[in-house]
């Protein structure tokens, strides 16, 4: 096992623990926005997709890159926007909801 893989594993496991800690506190009322919001975060693979699409390796790679960028962007843009749209609707009794 190489050093980099080991470091990656450390990061992964520790991040899982942070995730459990932070997300356990989210109330059921917000579970749908939590899902769509975290879903948008999983579109982080856009970072890898951009590099694939931008590196001029071969036509095959460019098609793979393009497809990956399109899918990841839909995931990111759509996910954050729809989460915002939902959260906008939540209001307290004393606030004007209209």
């Amino acid at each position, binding site marked *: 096992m*190489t050093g980099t*893989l080991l470091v990656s594993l450390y*990061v*992964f496991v520790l*991040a*899982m623990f*942070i*995730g*459990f800690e*932070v997300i356990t506190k989210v*109330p059921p*009322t*917000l*579970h*749908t926005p*939590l*899902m*769509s919001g*975290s*879903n*948008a*975060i*999983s*579109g*982080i*693979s*856009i*970072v*890898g997709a*951009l*590099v*694939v*699409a*931008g*590196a001029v*390796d*071969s036509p095959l*790679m460019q098609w793979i*890159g*393009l*497809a990956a960028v399109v*899918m*990841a*962007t*839909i*995931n*990111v*843009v*759509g*996910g*954050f*926007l*729809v989460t*915002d749209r*939902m959260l906008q*609707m939540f*209001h*307290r*009794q004393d606030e004007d*909801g209209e």
Partner: protein
Amino acid sequence: MQTLPIIQLSYLVSAVLFILGLKRLSSPATARGGNTLAALGMLVAVAATLLDQSIIDFTWIIVGVVAGGAIGLIMARTVKMTSMPQMVAVFNGFGGGASALVAAAEYFRAGEAGFATDAAVSIMAGVIIGTATFSGSLIAFGKLQGIVTEKAVKYPLQRTTSFLLFLGLLALAGYLGMRAPDGQLFLGVIAAALVLGVLIVIPIGGADMPVVVALLNSYSGLAASAAGFVLNNNALIIAGALVGASGLILTNIMCRAMNRSLANVMFGAFGAGAVGGGAGGADGDRVANEIDPEDAAMLMGYAQSVLIVPGYGLAVAQAQHKARELGDLLGKRGVQVKYVVHPVAGRMPGHMNVLLAEANVPYDQLYEPDDVNGDMENADVAIIIGANDVVNPAARDDPSSLIAGMPIIEVDRAKRTIVLKRSLNVGFAGIDNPLFYLQNNSMLFGDAAKSLSDLVEEVKAL
């Protein structure tokens, strides 16, 4: 791959913003800001990546971002709140698909020399998880949208087939990982992973979809993490792990809310047509009381506290606005109104809360079953709209019941209950509901939207 320190540092900033954003999602008051923070984190990550020196040509990047951005924008703007589960399923699928493609690109990039073992493991994991998430999510979308049958699809040797396919897939991936890139065999891995995703989701019934959507959410995060292992990119690893954890927590909550294990949801083929005991409905000796809107309005209008228990039937009838109107009218008369939402009331975790929020129900009137069960005896009237199994006292009283042990909203202990329903038919679990025949319960038969309109008129007339 060499990356500039500035890029690495930006990824760290992104990861911190993701965590802070998720943390703010723990209260409705700060949630919107939290989402913006997470989006900002994504923007930082994307901007930093564009500085990467291996990016030479921006043409395809611009085309992809513009096309994907436009599609995402339109979908997010136009989707109906009732269709939210489908959309989250589709987005999950795209996230998984993108991660799989990123891992696949890395596979083809490796030259004739082949891979180091750890790189091969990461790549194969990324491709398999991402691809299965993609196809599984599309099936989930199809089921939620009504394109694929909502019923649990059962076939002989279901578990064995999936398991063997999985083993074969692992063997093929392991073999491939030890050799130089082979396009055709690699396509075989992708095809097998696509089929696996389908096989995982197809046996699961429509009302178990909340669990599946949560699970796929988790997979899409794990796929991103795997892609992060492939690229040695901590931003992907951290973000993916956060989402993976989130999906697992929600999956667990949903399973607990139904008192079923994940294995039971995945393979149990619940509600596949088998009808549980006593589904016969009115057995002659048991008679359900009926009530008309006028009397029901009297009961509620002069009560001190009213619980409104919405089920998915409410959303199907598009009656959430009418329910809120009724709640508001009662509130103006000085009645204390609480909406009690069961975790599995909608088609995804928290779905019913969003539907009620859309209808302008304030979030401080939304309660969980545990919040009200302790004080149920003091509730004057509980009105149940389009819900059935989640208020079935058999879950508590009858150990032989199909839903025994499932946490319920114990409305049967309230002073009076009114059930709005078309008929005495069974719910999703296919079992009879003794609540309907209790002395203090009354049925208000009819379409939920129509009945609620009548109730609103009658309460106004009080």
